[in-house]
């Protein structure tokens, strides 16, 4: 819809570059020719109506899209200038973590094992190191105080919001460079949401974050950049403040002012 690459004018280097990306489910094209740059150590929000392809886009960013049978992509995704689709998906996913729309803790695993899983199953045996990573991640995810006495209890016994924070802790434990979050707060109450937003704010210092959200206030609060998608296409990408206050596209304006349809 917009000519040329939608790149930011930002002094920070680009961490993740999406270049002419299209994604398919079988014959169905879910996103079409999306290009955008995510600068290093920033939070970028992706907004847009339900079904516009936000989840599909971020699943392409750590090669989770191809996990579903019959899917394929066109275009490139560059992490530090290298195409993630060139090598092995497993090593890409260690560098680009993901939190899913629905909380999905490992059943039959304790809280501790859930958080430790990424380390242990990637061959890290050093008990002290794993312990430290688990505690650090749980604290970062604002869950530590609630679970510190039940750390060996099953992860599935936590409330929905706690489970989501557990999943965030699990993703943080392997210290990815980029963290993709698909509506991480959709199952959370306002207090937990505020905790997650604080967390996102902190994580920005070390990680590059991409967060899908339906909540425009949330995007405005946490994200430096915002991308607006509609019907599988990227409509507008800009600094959050600019996008919300002076949108260049009529579609964006209609969406953020709630005049839609």
């Amino acid at each position, binding site marked *: 819809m917009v000519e040329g690459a939608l790149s930011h004018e930002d002094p920070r280097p680009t961490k993740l570059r999406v270049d002419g990306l299209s994604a398919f489910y079988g014959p169905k094209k879910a996103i079409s020719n999306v290009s955008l740059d995510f600068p290093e150590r920033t939070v970028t929000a992706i907004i847009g109506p339900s079904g516009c392809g936000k989840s599909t886009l971020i699943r392409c960013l*750590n090669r*989770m899209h191809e*996990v579903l*049978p019959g899917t394929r992509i066109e275009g490139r995704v560059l992490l530090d200038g290298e195409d993630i689709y060139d090598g092995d*998906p*497993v*090593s*890409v*996913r*260690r*560098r680009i*973590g*993901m939190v*899913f729309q*629905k909380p*999905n*803790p*490992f*059943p*039959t*695993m304790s809280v501790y094992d859930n958080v430790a*899983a*990424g380390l242990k*199953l*990637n061959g890290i045996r050093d008990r002290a190191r794993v312990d430290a990573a688990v505690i650090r991640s749980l604290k970062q995810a604002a869950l530590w105080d609630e679970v510190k006495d039940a750390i060996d209890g*099953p992860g599935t016994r936590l409330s929905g919001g706690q489970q989501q924070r557990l*999943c965030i802790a*699990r*993703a943080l434990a*392997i210290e990815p460079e980029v963290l993709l979050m698909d509506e991480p707060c959709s199952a959370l109450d306002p207090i937990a949401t505020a905790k997650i937003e604080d967390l996102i704010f902190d994580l920005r210092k070390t990680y590059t974050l991409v967060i899908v959200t339906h909540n425009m206030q949330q995007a405005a609060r946490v994200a430096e950049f915002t991308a607006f998608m509609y019907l599988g296409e990227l409509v507008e990408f800009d600094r959050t403040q600019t996008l919300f206050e002076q949108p260049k596209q009529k579609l964006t304006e209609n969406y953020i002012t709630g005049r839609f349809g």
Partner: protein
Amino acid sequence: MRFDRNARRRWMNWIMSALALLCVVVALVPLGSIIYTAVTFGGHVLSFSFLTSGYPLACSPTPSQPTCPVGGIGPAIEGTGVLLALSSLFSVPPGILAGVYLSEFGRGRLGRSVSFFTDVMTGSPSIVVGIFVYTLFFLFFGPRGVFSALSGAVALAILMIPIVTRTTEEALRLVPNSVREAAYALGIPRYRAVLHVVLSAARGAILTGVVLAVMRAGGEAAPLLLTALGNPFGFQGLTQPSASLPPIIFNFGTSAYSNQVAVAWGAALVLIIIMLCISLTVRFALRSKLS
């Protein structure tokens, strides 16, 4: 109007509950009858020594010897234990692997044919499996190798594999895809995700399947009559015939001597109790593991 609907609903609820209860009773009647008969005819021989001592010799009460020695089923218990352990060893690993293959990897031709042959194996009568193993051992080891603990265990394993495979497959399919995705998103390689996350999420149901298979095999007599055959001493080595519970129920049950018939009833009762214990132990273990 509203009152009528509620009354009808309560009435229906009552009828359906009663029907469900009736079905439970009907289903339990055969079980109750089996246990009742086994206890009536076999209960009096049960004792600790019955579980350990050797088979009774054929004997009819005579004026000079009014009571016959009861003997026991020690050899059969020992043999059944060894046979079930061996057949579990032969069937559980391949059964679980095949189930994992079917659920996690098996698409296309190979997957479909594995699935098809599993169905065929599930459907084959145990006596046919017995004949198959008999023939197989005859071909490879000659007439002296046919009747052995090994051939008995192989026959039982063939009966167990499809049960383990199917329950493993079903159990793994019940693990939501989001769990697999969560593992992949952590950069965990696929085989490790399957081994450590998916299998572990399904371990309870898989264990139940293994127990089902063991119980199925433990009650089989027909294939063992063609393979392990039986001997009066218990387990005598892999290449020798081996005693086991179901065949002696068959052999002694058709005996003309009342003391042997009593042992057959006792053996039947012991078999039922063993199966019940296995099942309860596993249930109990699973429950305490999950909480």
